[in-house]
């Protein structure tokens, strides 16, 4: 038996298609890879051939007419051997190799190098159908070389004789594919360069501009980090005035009982003034690794509850995926997340304790998000439970402040502001009422009651409001009034409630209108027959449809002086009847429930008749 060893055969065009077409999410990534290669070339020159007066730089030129994009660096260039061994060998990276070699000798410099996997160069074929590279190595006696590829299996390498030879470095010219002309738009190009290379130390110039378009350092390394960070937030996040900025720093995170892990961390978090719509979630970070942009809107590095926070971080512990557009969610990812959560938690605690106005602004600006997430996260809930500010009928207050007004219970409305009738009853109770129209507020209040371990009652004012009525102890006194309403087929009850200025309120069962419509649909056979049982069974299960009940119940307030006067010192019968009808119709209209046109006509007719009677001239 004989064994043969054989090489894999690579079909380069197919591989290019897979790598360039499937690995990266956007053609812009091609530009990022080329800029980062240029940056690495400059860094390698500083490392391997240090020169006192060397000033690294990258220049980018575009020519819409020739459909070319050119990236020129004054890095260390390439020799023919390096082109063959690295540029033309997929999966082998000069920079990656150098980084490994330097990891022990010069770890700081090693960290400045970006390249890793050895196929980033291929991503240029995302936007280009042809690539030409002109290079001269910094190494002595090296010729000028021209490399050309159209993405096929073969490339051309030519030694050029140019006198005088071009400066050391590499110039890559891309012949841009049709459909990728966005690179010729100066604004898009500038934004793209800034997005990918803002923090890279090598200055990048566009189309002969005198000022670099990238910052060349992160704002936290500037002489005035606070001011520079604010300017950066304005420029990058379009946020003119964040409520606060929280600088991040290295952090020890616990590892078991006696050990800890040092997490190197730089960057900042900030809190925008408000969520752009009432519920817009942030909770995202722009992530850099050793100044290299990885991704924006990374949502898993911040704790779930921190949806009102944004920021920028740079952490060498994070591991990019092969496309370098996202992160491996490994153990270090979890550690970094832990470090950020710890620092954010401490900062918010500090603000809450030492800067109440700022805390109030944060709570106001992001109230919906904060209550929503506090309900789901016990730890976060404890941090904000006593600090959250709620809108009430007596102004904004925290729950401890509220309990000073109403120690026995939280009174709340789940409909925004509630109906006027509900608000009136609340005010009559002489307690502030919490606006709980946001879905999370009621669960927040319930959680608070459990957490505070106090006897606090929860009273929903827009549920069954009859819970706020007390029975009349001496109903016989008011029997004639009830008797009148019974004759008119109006359901009425005698109760006492506050405010006593209100003589009567009309109360309907929940969903009265919907239930009436359901009844009509069943009575008139409007539903498709297979669905009738579904609906009728539901109606039966929920207590049936009592016509009388659905018309509502008039609650006469026997604590009201007018009602007492009508019962004890009744006016002439006609005036009494007119007054009672008027009270009924006013209560109906005041209830805020939908009236049918026929109901409304009847209500106005009764009202007009009653007023006509009451205002008729006296016969003296």
């Amino acid at each position, binding site marked *: 038996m004989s064994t043969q060893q054989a090489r894999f055969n690579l079909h380069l065009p197919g591989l290019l298609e897979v790598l360039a077409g499937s690995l990266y999410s956007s053609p812009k990534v091609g530009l990022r890879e080329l800029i980062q290669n240029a940056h690495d070339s400059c860094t390698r020159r500083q490392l391997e051939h240090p020169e006192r007066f060397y000033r690294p730089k990258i220049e980018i030129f575009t020519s819409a007419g020739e459909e070319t994009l050119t990236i020129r660096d004054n890095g260390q260039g390439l020799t023919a051997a390096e082109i063959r061994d690295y540029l033309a060998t997929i999966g082998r990276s000069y920079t990656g190799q150098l980084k490994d070699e330097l990891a022990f000798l010069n770890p700081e410099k090693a960290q400045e190098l970006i390249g890793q996997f050895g196929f980033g160069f291929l991503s240029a074929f995302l936007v280009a159908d042809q690539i030409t590279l002109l290079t001269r190595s910094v190494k002595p006696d090296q010729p000028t070389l021209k490399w050309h590829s159209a993405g096929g299996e073969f490339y051309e390498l030519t030694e050029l004789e140019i006198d005088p030879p071009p400066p050391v470095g590499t110039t890559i010219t891309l012949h841009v594919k049709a459909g990728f002309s966005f690179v010729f738009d100066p604004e898009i190009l500038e934004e793209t360069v800034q997005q990918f290379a803002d923090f890279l130390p090598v200055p990048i110039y566009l189309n002969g501009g005198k000022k670099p378009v990238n910052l060349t350092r992160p704002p936290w390394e500037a002489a005035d980090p606070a001011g520079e960070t604010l300017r950066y937030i304005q420029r990058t996040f379009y946020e003119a005035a964040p409520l606060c900025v929280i600088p991040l720093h290295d952090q020890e995170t616990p590892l078991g009982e006696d050990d800890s892990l040092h997490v190197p961390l730089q960057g900042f978090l900030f809190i925008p003034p408000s969520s752009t*719509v*009432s*519920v*817009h*979630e942030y909770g995202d970070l722009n992530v850099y690794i050793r100044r290299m942009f990885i991704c924006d809107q990374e949502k898993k590095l911040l704790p779930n509850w921190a949806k009102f926070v944004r920021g920028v971080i740079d952490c060498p512990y994070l591991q990019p995926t092969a496309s370098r557009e996202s992160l491996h969610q490994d153990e270090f990812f979890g550690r970094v997340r832990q470090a950020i959560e710890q620092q954010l938690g401490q900062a918010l605690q500090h603000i809450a304790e030492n800067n109440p106005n700022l805390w109030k602004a944060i709570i106001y600006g992001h109230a*919906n998000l904060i209550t*929503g997430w506090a309900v789901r996260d016990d730890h976060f809930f404890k941090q904000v439970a006593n600090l959250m500010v709620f809108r009430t009928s007596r102004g904004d207050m925290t729950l401890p402040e509220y309990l000073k007004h109403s120690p026995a219970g939280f009174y709340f409305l789940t409909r*925004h502001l509630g109906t006027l009738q509900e608000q009136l009853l609340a005010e009559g109770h002489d307690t502030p009422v919490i606006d709980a129209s*946001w*879905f*999370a507020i009621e669960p927040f209040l319930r959680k608070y009651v459990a957490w505070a371990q106090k006897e606090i009652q929860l009273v929903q004012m827009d549920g069954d409001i009859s819970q706020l009525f007390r029975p009349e102890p001496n109903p016989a006194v008011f029997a004639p009034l009830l008797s009148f309403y019974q004759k008119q087929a109006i359901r009425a009850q005698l109760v006492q409630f506050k405010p006593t200025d209100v003589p009567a309120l009309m109360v309907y069962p929940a*969903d009265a209108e*919907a239930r009436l*419509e*359901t009844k009509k*649909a069943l009575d008139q056979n*409007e*539903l*498709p*027959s*297979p*669905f009738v*049982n*579904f*609906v009728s069974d*539901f*109606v039966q299960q*929920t207590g049936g449809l009592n016509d009388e009940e659905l018309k509502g119940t008039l609650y006469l307030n026997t604590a009201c002086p007018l009602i007492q006067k009508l019962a004890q010192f009744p006016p002439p019968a006609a005036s009494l009847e007119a007054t009672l009808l008027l009270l009924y119709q006013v209560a109906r209209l005041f209830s805020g429930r939908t009236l049918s046109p026929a109901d409304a006509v009847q209500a106005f007719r009764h009202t007009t008749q009653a007023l006509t009677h009451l205002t008729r001239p006296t016969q003296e």
Partner: protein
Amino acid sequence: MSIWNWIMNYRFQAYANKDPQRQKMVQLATFEALDLMETNPDQSLALLNEAQGIARQLQEEWWVMFCEHWKLQILMHRKKDYATAQKLAVQAAVEVLKPQYASFPQKSCLYEDLINVYLGIDPEGYAAEIESALAYMKETVTPEKECWQCLHSLYAEFPAVRERWDVAAEPTLRFLAESQEEEHHLMYAYSSMCELLLEQQNLSKIGEFAELGLKLAESNDKDYMVVEFLAWQGLSAYQAGQHPLAQKKISAAEQASQTLASVPTRATYKAICAYYQATGQFDKALQTRHQQWDKINGRGQLMGEFVCLREICTLLKQLGQPFEAEFELAEQTAHQMKKPQRFLAQLATLKDKDEG
């Protein structure tokens, strides 16, 4: 007019007319609310309520009902709150009878929601009604409509929730065939296939569908379906003799289910329990059923509650532990259904064997 054409046209008009109220309504009801369905269903519901408030002010009745449909979807499929869903679905079915909804493109969806609600609540008790309602829908919905696949998913779900595996194969395969062009439904069809294969004891095939389903669940960001397919993969790996991989997949499903914003699917619990039962870890299967019970108890899903309690009783019995309280509760739950006979008989068998 298709639903999404209607939405896109409406949105375009709102922007063309520079109408901020309508823009905000559409933004909230579609992009904002639907984006949050997986990660924060409560907030998603709140957004739909907010959008409905605007729609009512603007008298945009179709939009009120559009939001209602999605609220129902969240209540049924993310929160498993059938009690609240039943009320909304009944009201919606009555509301769309009004003339202004005559050509409302989502009218069929609301009727399908009502069927779906009863599939969740008491599919056995309402079997005849569900059957005729499905037949009615089949007459009114045509294959080019979006709800065609939804209808077939209901056909597949009908025998599955009733545990009528003898008649489940045809509608499940039909659902699979009808969903080939539509990723979202295809993912659910794969889930139905996994459950059917488990019941048919054809476990070697589950892995194939679980893998396909997992890919779709991941690419569609359906975290709760990712959890389900991981569980199916675990079960399938165990059957293939890949025990460490099986354990890893089941652990991953269990861990992920802890952080899910949605209530895991019925099939998730079923797959995890099947794994634990196959490995003889009855205590863990019991623990899983208890977790399920905590999630579904008191939310109107009578059939789901009964099945969960019946399985708890079975597991307690296998573990040699008393189960009187659970048995009593299962009986009570069965009696709340319209046709409890079959389920009471199942319980009686359990008791008989116990006494035997």
